[in-house]
């Protein structure tokens, strides 16, 4: 691209920010292991997260085997079932999705998209990954300690979490709590980087309102996480003390296995408040980056500017702020003051407004767009569908009277899998198909990708739609087996078996995706620097994959927002953010 000055307004003053001095390692180890390059750290985060995610996927398969075919598998006992439920839930939510969205995509995309050479504190960023890895190893170690991992459910409610009788009450729970504490410390290091990089390291011309929505989503999610994770930290510390030293922060006076324990006076409800003060924002920590990325995917692949950019940003802020004041909707059944419940029901329903705005805006962006049904686009549309589904059942559950009978049934499991498992995972897949060419320089195979999409999308619906119905029938969650229960018709059991078969197939099909990742890395079609014709800065780097330092000798200067697609009167159907204004009319002048 030629840099020709057109008129005075194009004049670019010399940079005010000094060039960052990057640490340039010489050895292989310095480059790929103890790396301070955010892009390498991002890959490390992603691979680790996906690896534990696979463990969690296998666990869910085992759980489904038990639910579909009770009395068949002798290696699944009630205890191990609970352990698998717990580990599956915690790994998926924290160690996979949070780490992948913020540590993985955050690290890769933030510096590139804001036009920085790297994160502002590269060393801290590196330590962040290693602390995360340590947390993962601690968690995995709990499979091998006496008593195995904890079976308390991912919500870790005391008193049961640390009482004998719950699997893993001696070692497992401690490892879980300590691992979470380390995760939080590691995340805080990374989080400081993401926030400060967005605030302070944007290149010239990149105002906050010119940031791609991906960055907005990750930015707000990080702020939420920085404020909410301390609540989990506090509860981990206090529960560890309760368990190891016999304090009574959460533990009431209690008789366990016929014995009066030394505890007394503690408040399990206090734990629930602390846990959900973290737990609800956690949903948005996962959802907001997904919102952001999906906005960009839709805009790029529909060749249209995002509808209502400003509204999208405001909605992200509103959702972020509101999500800190809705936590007690997870505690409707805890016997709280009805007025309290009323307050939280209202805030919960209010949060639906900005969320709905976002959904409308996605749909309106698609409306009469030049939709390219590429694999990323398919996943993006899959996300919108799934999110609407999960959001609607969320409106049910947000009302106290509806929630009471449905709480702790399969209906809840179906709801939250739709909204915070399937939907974000759709975005993860879409984003990987979208950015893989930038990361490796090669395209992922399209046919395999389409197959992967349809199998995953249809499969997820086959798994989770029937689960709503099972919940209405009254099938409880976290139950090892239903036995002979009168209220369940025979068909419910066959339905369960059917769900299991589909779940196993969908799980197995993910192998196709992994195969595609590896195969395309060596054999994929070379992609060039900007295969999708996207405007954002990461696609304008001189090298693909970008080298350490991202942008070659000079940093890009930004002249426009990130959504100049199909601008009338311009030859190309997109204008990169760093293209000076005069050049946009080049097409016209030449003809």
């Amino acid at each position, binding site marked *: 691209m030629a840099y020709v000055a057109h008129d005075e307004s194009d004049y670019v003053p010399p940079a005010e920010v000094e060039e960052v001095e990057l640490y340039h390692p010489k050895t292989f180890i310095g480059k790929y292991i103890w790396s301070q390059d955010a892009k390498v750290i991002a890959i490390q985060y992603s691979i680790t997260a996906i690896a534990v995610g696979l463990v969690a996927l296998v666990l869910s398969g085992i759980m489904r085997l038990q639910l579909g075919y009770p009395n068949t598998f002798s290696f699944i006992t009630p205890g191990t079932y609970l352990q698998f439920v717990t580990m599956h839930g915690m790994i998926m939510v924290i160690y996979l999705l949070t780490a992948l969205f913020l540590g993985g995509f955050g690290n890769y995309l933030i510096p590139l998209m804001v036009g920085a050479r790297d994160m502002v504190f590269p060393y801290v960023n590196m330590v962040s990954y290693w602390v995360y890895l340590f947390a993962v190893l601690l968690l995995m170690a709990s499979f091998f300690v006496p008593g195995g991992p904890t079976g308390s459910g991912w919500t870790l409610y005391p008193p049961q979490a640390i009482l004998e009788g719950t699997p893993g009450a001696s070692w497992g729970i401690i490892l879980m709590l300590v691992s979470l504490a380390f995760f939080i410390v590691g995340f805080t290091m990374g989080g400081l980087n993401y926030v400060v990089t967005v605030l302070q390291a944007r290149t010239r011309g990149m105002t*906050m309102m010119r940031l791609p929505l991906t960055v907005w989503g990750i930015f707000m999610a990080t702020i939420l996480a920085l404020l909410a994770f301390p609540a989990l930290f506090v509860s981990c510390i206090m529960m560890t003390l309760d368990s190891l030293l016999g304090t009574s*922060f959460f533990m009431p006076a209690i008789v366990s296995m016929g014995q009066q324990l030394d505890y007394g006076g503690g408040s399990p409800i206090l734990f629930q408040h602390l846990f959900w003060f973290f737990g609800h924002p956690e949903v948005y920590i996962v959802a907001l980056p997904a919102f952001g990325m999906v906005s960009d995917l839709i805009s790029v692949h529909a060749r249209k500017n995002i509808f209502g950019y400003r509204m999208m940003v405001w909605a992200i802020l509103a959702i972020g702020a509101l999500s800190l004041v809705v936590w007690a909707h997870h505690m409707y059944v805890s016997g709280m003051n009805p007025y309290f419940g009323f307050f939280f029901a209202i805030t919960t329903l209010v949060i639906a407004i900005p969320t709905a705005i976002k959904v409308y805006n996605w749909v309106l962006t698609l409306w009469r767009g030049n939709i390219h049904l590429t694999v990323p686009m398919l996943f993006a549309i899959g996300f919108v569908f799934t999110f609407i589904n999960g959001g609607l059942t969320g409106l049910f559950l947000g009302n106290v009277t509806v929630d009471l009978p449905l709480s702790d049934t399969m209906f809840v499991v179906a709801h939250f899998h739709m909204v915070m498992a399937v939907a974000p995972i759709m975005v993860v897949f879409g984003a990987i198909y979208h950015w893989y060419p930038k990361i490796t320089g090669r395209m992922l195979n399209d046919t395999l990708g389409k197959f992967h999409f349809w199998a995953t999308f249809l499969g997820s619906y086959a798994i989770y739609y029937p689960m709503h119905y099972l919940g209405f029938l009254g099938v409880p969650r976290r139950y090892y087996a239903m036995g002979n229960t009168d209220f369940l018709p025979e068909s419910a059991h066959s339905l369960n078996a059917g769900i299991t078969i589909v779940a196993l197939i969908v799980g197995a099909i993910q192998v196709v995706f992994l195969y595609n990742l590896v195969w395309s890395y060596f054999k994929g079609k070379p992609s060039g620097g900007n295969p999708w014709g996207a405007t954002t800065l990461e696609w304008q780097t001189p090298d693909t994959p970008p080298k350490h330092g991202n942008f070659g000798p000079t940093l890009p200067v930004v002249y426009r927002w990130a959504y100049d697609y199909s601008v009338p009167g311009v030859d190309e159907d997109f204008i990169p953010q760093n293209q000076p204004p005069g050049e946009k009319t080049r097409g016209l002048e030449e003809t």
Partner: protein
Amino acid sequence: MTIALVVAAAIVAIIVGWLLRQTLNTKPWIEQQHPIENVRAESAWSLPPVKVGLGVFLAVATSLFALFISAYFMRRMGADWNTLADPMVLWWNTALLCLGSIYFQRARTAAQRGQIDGVKVGLLAGGAFTFAFLAGQLWAWQQLNASGFYLATNPASDFFYLLTALHGLHLLGGLWVWGRTTAKVWRGFEVADVRLSVELCTVYWHFLLVVWLILFGLLLST
């Protein structure tokens, strides 16, 4: 939990307020709203990143302490809460920490004026008073222990140990940075090289002083 709620709301309000003062109400799709040179000035602060980093970290620490304090209030409603006789030495400790903060402030002023001697004195005295404070806190633990309040004796003493330990750990973290800065000063670095570190330490110390005053008031009042 109301406290945590209020604090979180305040932090979010600050963030949103700041963002609104930014360019949140501009229309980015209209081309050429600003020539580039104005854009920089209004888009990012001209602060060094570490300063902003410290600010963000303080927000996280505020959230952490606010949550502990919320937990304290909720747990205090339990019937088994015994009022503690707080050790007298806490008053002395408070004075020591105040002095520490004052000397850090002096180091900062000296650094701004470029007086290396003032920086040296301020840093040394500030660090010394902080160590004295920590020693005093250990002594307070000793006294509590002697009067029969161990960890896990009563929720009041549990919280006492927990909160003071947490605060102490934050100070230790600060002392680590203080140690590196002081070593630099002694190895003959210019004032300009340490000005920023001195300033960051000072802000951090003031923050921890305020946290301590709040915690102390809380411990006294119950």
